[in-house]
């Protein structure tokens, strides 16, 4: 288990205790992870772990770059914070399985670059963005 390998670690959340992530999306993402031959971490439900302040979240948040297939980046950031396991916004990319297709999630998971997208300050989206 290397801590200094070049690629980001991969973390998948199964959102086991709610039906908010489309079943077909999470099933397809997990299937491609399993078929890929690559190493990854999978958890049953980040919310449940955050509620228990599971020390495992510190293990998952620490030690370098990570890509997380879960839900909204703002929510994922808050969940880790709640467990005293802050994510590093510079080295974390969250892929939202509630809004993205499985193919889009997997393309970003397996890409060698990391597009950090965890919010670092309060921001709002305008209702009608300028064209």
């Amino acid at each position, binding site marked *: *288990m290397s801590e200094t*390998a070049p690629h980001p670690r991969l973390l998948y959340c*199964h959102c086991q205790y709610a039906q908010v992530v489309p079943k077909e999306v999470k099933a397809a993402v997990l299937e491609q992870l399993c078929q890929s031959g690559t*190493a990854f971490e999978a958890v049953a439900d980040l919310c449940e772990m955050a509620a*228990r302040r599971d020390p495992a979240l510190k293990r998952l948040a620490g030690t370098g770059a990570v890509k997380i297939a879960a839900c*909204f980046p703002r929510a994922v950031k808050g969940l880790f914070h709640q467990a005293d396991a802050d994510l590093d916004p510079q080295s974390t990319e969250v892929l939202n399985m509630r809004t993205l297709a499985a193919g889009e999630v997997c393309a970003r998971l397996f890409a060698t670059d990391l597009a950090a997208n965890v919010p670092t300050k309060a921001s709002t989206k305008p209702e009608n963005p300028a064209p």
Partner: protein
Amino acid sequence: MALRDSSALRVIVYEGPGSDPLPERLATITALLERGHAVTRTGGDRPVAPADAAPTLVLGRFAQAPEFSGTTAEWRVRDITTLNSAQIADVVESTRAELGAARHGEWKPWFPVIDYDRCTNCMQCLSFCLFGVYGVDGERQIQVQNQDNCKTNCPACSRVCPEAAIMFPKYKAGPINGDIVSDADLQKEKMKVDISALLGGDVYSMLRLRSDKARSRFSKERDSDKALTERQKCLVKLAESGDIPPEVLMSLPSPEEIARRAEEAAAKARAALEPLG
């Protein structure tokens, strides 16, 4: 359920040197996730999280069981060559119990998550919640302290937050589910608070008043079926106005108890907002 600082069992699906690939990898990992475990699959050129103090079970199709060293945690190694995915899940569950790792699935993880980038520490959520979900830390910063006191599927406290800083990640819609907050969302949140202020600033009093009025009306009804229908209609209206599950409204305590709890929560909020002496 009492939540505690216990770690989930870490299950390592080991397919490195000395272990054959799993024929039922997807089925096995899915079965483990459905039982609430955290799974690490090794292999390839990516890193995984390092070993820590979590209780750990290493599964593999071992020609010769490997030895692991350098950890302080409870480690177990299990050869699963002859087992199918359901049998593997059973083995893991019994190991979880044996190692005293966290149990899962007894509670739907429904609780507020604070977006501290937005939160202004105004304590409205603390004042509002009757169930003691919120508290403050040593520096008087609002925090979620009793997640399991939260009423499942009730996002009411997020509705009183003027900054849209309270998320419920398992909620159906944004921005409560963690989606980006829009300007329109903020305007809506402000309007809600203003409406609450116009009504006397006490949402629970308003709800109780409406409920009492409805009850008084029902008591004059001779037809109990009709009264029940009316009551159900009224509850539906209340539930829709705050997106509060009817079962939460039905389980609200007596008016006296509501008043007591509301005063207790307000006192906590006032104390948190007082200047440090």
